[in-house]
């Protein structure tokens, strides 16, 4: 477990965060700007010093009352929003900066290995980081942090300073780290699509406080949280690749509540994927639809209905044994269909985004 508790105030801002999360997988700190995500991350790193802080990582105390482990003694990696490469060092020397500063016995990863993971073979020979693109710089920064063999990796919106193309370029590397590396990651983001792709656990922050934390699915499925009001609110489904239809170029994904057909993905049968179904892409029918072009229709039971502004409502449904699905429909549709909690309905999924 990671247990963090910090109180910090500046003029115009106060952080009162108390957080307990599992020390494996990716934990996303999500919230609007000014909600204290970055400040909390900096407290965890020791970059902000608080008088009354508590930080335990896997049973080790990094900060507690008067004890404060200085930043350079904490076995962590930190990736800043901007890559912050050292301009006076070559790419290789940037990568080696942290590596050289940890004792050889603590080195769990080799330089070559990390260079391979992040696709830096062509960049490592550069004399200076000056000519690198934004995405390349950030990949070097991530590799540099990983080379200190951290026991906790902190990432502060590593994609937010990048253009769409660089984001697209770097995402697969982050997903691969998620899959291959057994380092807990705390990832700050204000982009829900990023969080949905990468995170296992989600921590929601608002005005310097942690307002909810838990498994990604569980938090995204809650209608009482601000995430449900976002335009791109939706559910995440972990599914396995079950079959490919070569004729129509489709792939069937199976999950606990049924199956979904998506455009063909080049993945082996049995491999796990993550799909995202936005609430606005799910419509409701009370009888099995006939003659519909929508091929993904799931039987679902409504467990919650909530008003979403003057004209819309959000529905939360359970599909099969516990998979959550959200839907956003008009208030008029709800009344015309007489939708109520406990009703069995057919959820028509207009679009599924395969995100990992």
């Amino acid at each position: 477990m990671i247990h963090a508790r910090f109180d910090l105030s500046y003029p115009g801002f106060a952080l009162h965060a108390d957080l307990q999360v599992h020390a494996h997988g990716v934990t996303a700190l999500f919230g609007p700007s000014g909600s204290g995500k970055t400040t909390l991350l900096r407290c965890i790193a020791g970059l902000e010093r608080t008088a009354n802080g508590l930080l335990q990582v896997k049973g080790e105390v990094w900060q507690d009352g008067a004890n404060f482990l200085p930043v350079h003694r904490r076995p962590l990696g930190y990736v800043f929003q901007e890559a912050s490469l050292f301009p006076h060092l070559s790419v290789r020397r940037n990568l080696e900066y942290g590596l050289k500063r940890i004792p050889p016995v603590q080195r769990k990863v080799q330089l070559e290995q990390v260079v391979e993971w992040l696709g830096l073979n062509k960049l490592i020979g550069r004399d200076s980081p000056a000519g690198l693109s934004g995405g390349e710089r950030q990949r070097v920064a991530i590799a540099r942090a990983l080379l200190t063999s951290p026991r906790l990796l902190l990432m502060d919106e590593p994609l937010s300073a990048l253009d769409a193309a660089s984001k697209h370029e770097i995402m697969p590397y982050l997903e691969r780290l998620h899959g291959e590396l057994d380092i807990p990651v705390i990832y700050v983001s204000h982009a829900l699509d990023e969080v949905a792709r990468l995170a296992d656990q989600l921590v929601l922050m608002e005005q310097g406080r942690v307002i909810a934390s838990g498994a990604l699915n569980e938090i995204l499925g809650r209608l009482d949280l601000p995430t449900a009001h976002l335009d791109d609110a939706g559910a995440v489904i972990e599914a396995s690749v079950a079959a490919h239809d070569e004729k129509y170029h489709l792939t069937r994904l199976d999950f606990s509540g049924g199956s979904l057909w998506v455009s063909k993905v080049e993945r082996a049968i049995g491999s796990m994927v993550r799909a995202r179904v936005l609430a606005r892409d799910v419509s409701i029918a009370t009888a099995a639809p006939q003659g519909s072009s929508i091929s993904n229709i799931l039987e679902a039971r409504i467990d919650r209905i909530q008003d979403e502004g003057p004209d819309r409502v959000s529905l939360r449904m359970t599909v099969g044994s516990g998979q959550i699905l959200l839907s956003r429909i008009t208030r008029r549709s709800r009344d015309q269909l007489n939708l109520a909690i406990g009703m069995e309905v057919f959820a028509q999924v207009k679009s599924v985004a395969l995100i990992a």
Partner: protein
Amino acid sequence: MESAFSSADLSAIWLTFKLAAVVTVILLLVGTPIAWWLARTRSWWKGPVGAVVALPIVLPPTVIGFYLLVAMGPNGPLGHLTQALGIGLLPFTFAGLVIASVFYSLPFVVQPLQNAFEAIPERALETAATLRASASDTFFSVALPLAKPGLLTASVLGFAHTVGEFGVVLMIGGNIPDKTRVVSVQIYDHVEAMEYAAAHWLSAGMVVFAFVVLLLLYTFNPTGKRK
């Protein structure tokens, strides 16, 4: 023409360079920590210390020389100290000249260094800390290399400014051949003695030296602005 410079001139030139070199080394050692502190501190003392360091820029050299002379004299605090240590008195010695020149040229070393240190983003130092570098490690592996242009400017200005001093030397060092008679004083002597040709050679030499040094500095030193 036999030689443009007399042996007294050459001795003064050698002494000037020796003085400037020793003073520059001391200034870098003393000025770097002061500049680092001034660049990073949030202490109330930043203003007063910065002002004291900058005083030689505005004060007449004779004023600085006068007070240093008093301080180093038999009844001054520095004089008491040096006498108690068995070193004797510093005025009219090379060591006294070095100390006076360090005070006199301090701002020319501290200010470029301070500007260079202030231009280093806090983020670079934080990044180093997250990569396991202690504060002193960060200073030597990140701050100093990033401040290299400032370091070069500081060295050149400190050296050149010491070469060019006159008033302080006259107050503290007097005019003792081979010990305290530097080029600027030698020129003064030549002019006093109506030896205009000799004064010309030394003066023109100073002009050329100053021009070349500054030209090299402005041409080859990368400005601190980099992306």
